[in-house]
């Protein structure tokens, strides 16, 4: 009796295993489930993300699970990969690409990309060169990066009687800010008024001003293969001194040191607490669009983009944003299928999904033209890539753009404007340390705690002591 019970129990335990084994032997072509971990790319909410996933499946013929992480992406990425979860495709930024590549966590895609007809036909080789690490490519593009530039609220400067086309030097900008401050404090009674906000964390928005001395943010290699940081070059002194002067005279918002970009943006369009900042070209339009919704455009808010200041060699230097990318983890189960998604995102059709969104939800096609639904308009024609990477993608298909954005984007295409990324020292730069050191010394200088020349020397010495420069 006892034996029979034991036999039955063992049989009951083994039955599901045997059935599963029998079932799997009948599956001749297992479905490839492609797992994608995404940050900004996808639907705006869970329901739309499902539709995005389906649209991507339809376009690629793959079975895809797209996990979109709404916030805290870096930590989620770290936790999931560190815990051994397997993904076929992951979203990452340029710094993460360097880190992951140096740890062997992502696959070398050089051969795949260089032999891809889709990439050859759609992606500029210049863009690819910007993400090479020791000549190799470890990721494909999510979108085309734009650049921050000077954004000025013309509605205020017009009241003061300032001609923005005549702002050519650091002194011109200083005088403009001074006039605006005086006007706002005396005529409009908004005292104290700090007209300029520059986001000091990461010393991120300073490129239009360092353009005046022809220097770029980050770390580069010189002709002898030594690493150097242009912002701590002696030639940078006039810009450090200029920033210090702005703060001393109440022209720079003290919140520049403590606030976030959200604070800066609200001050620009919502409360008009500032008249000038540096922000993405797309934000020129977003400022105006937000103001339009609030009923303050163009009387109180009419933001225009400016290229900053020409350098000694006659060009404006603007900084292209760090690339947002797709990489294939080294433990991916389906790297071929994952690469086909990377290729799809580089096509005009993929670009349309990443920008306009999902056909039938965000837009409908009428007479060959996109007609945006209310949902589509609310989603701002951005599902991960407001500016797709494909050179064949026609931005005009997205219809009317936000006021001012077309002009701001056009600045980057001017012959006298050079848009280039910051110096990553071929992926060797420890960005966190560079940002911390630079923002510390700049803050001390601007707030008047050390002289500009001493701050430059101090920053250079600290960068050198940490091996960031040679």
């Amino acid at each position, binding site marked *: 009796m006892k034996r029979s019970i034991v036999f039955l129990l063992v049989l009951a335990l083994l039955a599901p295993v045997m059935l599963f084994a029998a079932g799997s032997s009948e599956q001749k072509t297992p479905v490839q489930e492609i797992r994608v971990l995404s940050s900004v790319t996808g639907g705006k909410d869970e329901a739309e993300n499902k539709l995005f996933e389906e649209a991507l499946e339809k376009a690629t013929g793959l079975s895809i699970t797209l996990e979109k992480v709404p916030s805290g992406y870096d930590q989620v990425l*770290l936790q999931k990969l*560190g815990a051994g979860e397997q993904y076929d495709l992951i979203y990452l930024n340029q710094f993460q690409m360097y880190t992951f590549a140096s*740890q*062997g966590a992502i696959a070398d895609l050089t051969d795949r990309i260089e032999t891809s007809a889709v990439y050859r036909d759609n992606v500029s080789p210049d863009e690819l060169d910007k993400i090479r690490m020791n000549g190799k490519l470890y990721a494909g593009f999510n979108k085309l990066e734009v650049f921050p530039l000077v954004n000025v609220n013309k509605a205020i400067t017009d009241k003061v009687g300032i001609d923005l086309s005549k702002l050519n030097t650091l002194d011109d900008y200083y005088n403009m800010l001074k006039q605006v401050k005086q006007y706002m404090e005396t005529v409009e009674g908004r005292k104290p008024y700090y007209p300029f906000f520059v986001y000091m964390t990461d010393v991120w928005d300073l490129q239009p001003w360092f353009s005046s001395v022809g220097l770029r943010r980050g770390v580069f290699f010189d002709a002898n293969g030594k690493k150097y940081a242009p912002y701590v070059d002696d030639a940078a002194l006039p810009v450090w001194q200029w920033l210090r002067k702005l703060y001393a005279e109440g022209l720079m918002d003290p919140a520049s040191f403590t606030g976030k970009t959200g604070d800066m943006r609200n001050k620009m369009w919502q409360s008009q607490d500032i008249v000038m900042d540096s922000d993405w070209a797309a934000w020129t339009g977003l400022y105006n669009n937000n103001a339009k919704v609030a009923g303050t455009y163009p009387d109180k808010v009419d933001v225009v983009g400016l290229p900053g200041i020409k350098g000694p060699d006659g060009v404006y230097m603007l900084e292209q944003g760090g690339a947002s990318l797709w990489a294939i983890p080294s433990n991916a189960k389906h790297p071929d299928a994952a690469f086909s998604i990377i290729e799809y995102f580089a096509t005009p059709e993929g670009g349309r999904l990443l920008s306009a969104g999902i056909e039938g939800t965000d837009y409908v096609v009428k007479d060959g033209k996109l007609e945006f639904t209310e949902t589509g308009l609310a989603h701002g024609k951005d599902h991960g890539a407001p500016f797709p990477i494909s050179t064949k993608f026609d931005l005009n298909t997205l219809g009317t753009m936000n006021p001012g954005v077309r002009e701001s984007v056009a600045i980057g295409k001017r012959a006298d404007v050079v848009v280039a990324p910051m110096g990553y020292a071929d992926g060797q730069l*420890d960005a*966190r340390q560079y940002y911390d050191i630079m923002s*510390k010394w700049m*803050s001390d200088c601007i707030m008047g705690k050390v002289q500009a020349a001493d701050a430059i020397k101090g920053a250079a010495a600290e960068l050198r002591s940490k091996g960031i420069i040679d």
Partner: protein
Amino acid sequence: MVSPDVGMPDCKDSGPGSYEKGGVVSMDTQTFRKMRRYKALYILFIPIVLYLLVFTYYPFVRGLVMSFQENRLIGKRPFAGLSNYAKVVADPDFIASIVNSLIIGVVDMVLYFVLALLLALMINEIRSSTMRKSIQTIAYIPYLFSWAVIGGVWALIFDIKGLVNAILGFFGQEAVFFLAETSLARPLIIGMGVWRSVGYFALLFSVAIVGIDPTLFEAAKIDGASRLTQIRKIIIPSLSGTMKTIIVLLSIGVLTHFDEIYVMVNPANRRFISTLLLYVYETGILNFRMGTASAGATLVMIGTVLIATVMRRLTRYDEE
């Protein structure tokens, strides 16, 4: 009825695992018997033990192992010896964060303890029960706020256009940029912690005060002791157990300040308030260097154990 397992005379003085001369019952066997006898209670422990194993000890062991491995997110992580520890210890930023952590942690500890005790004693002196409870609640409420909310509140108060500067302006004083003023960086962080936590620790003291035998006060009154004498001779000595617990609890937190730093750090004050856990977070987590982060975290843990052990000894925590 006395259990035959409890207090067996032949086992009374045995050390763990030792055997009585010629006896057959070891301490282990005795423990096992006890466990069998109270198995229902031990079964109740299982979820807690599992929870601790899965969510505390397993990650801890994984982290410890990782601290001796190369920084690799995926795949096998080769053994790296002590190189992660060497990197962390040689980093001047790590040393600076030790200094910051100790200054902020120790000052916090002293202020939390002293101010909470004073607050509890003062609350205890309030005769009106409604008033006493109201003040206790008001003092405790900040502890319920998240650090993000408290950071926002303090930013509003101390911003260049905030409440304090508005008051200074009213009296014709120049505005002070509190949030980025380097000399005020640590006092602000410490002040935030005090504002948030003193009410909580005062509540712990208050609970202990309420538990003091009222006949002691009656006897003291009859003997003509003043209120101050009663506080000195009855209340404070009666609180010694609670004091020890709070001191040990606070000492465990000396090196683990993070949230308040995270919400208040900016380019100007970073070097004065960047603590060990912020260092671990920024160097390890944000840069995806798990080996380095684990080495830093392990050192923080060792430091915490050391501080807590010293404080246990100093307070004679384990003595009656």
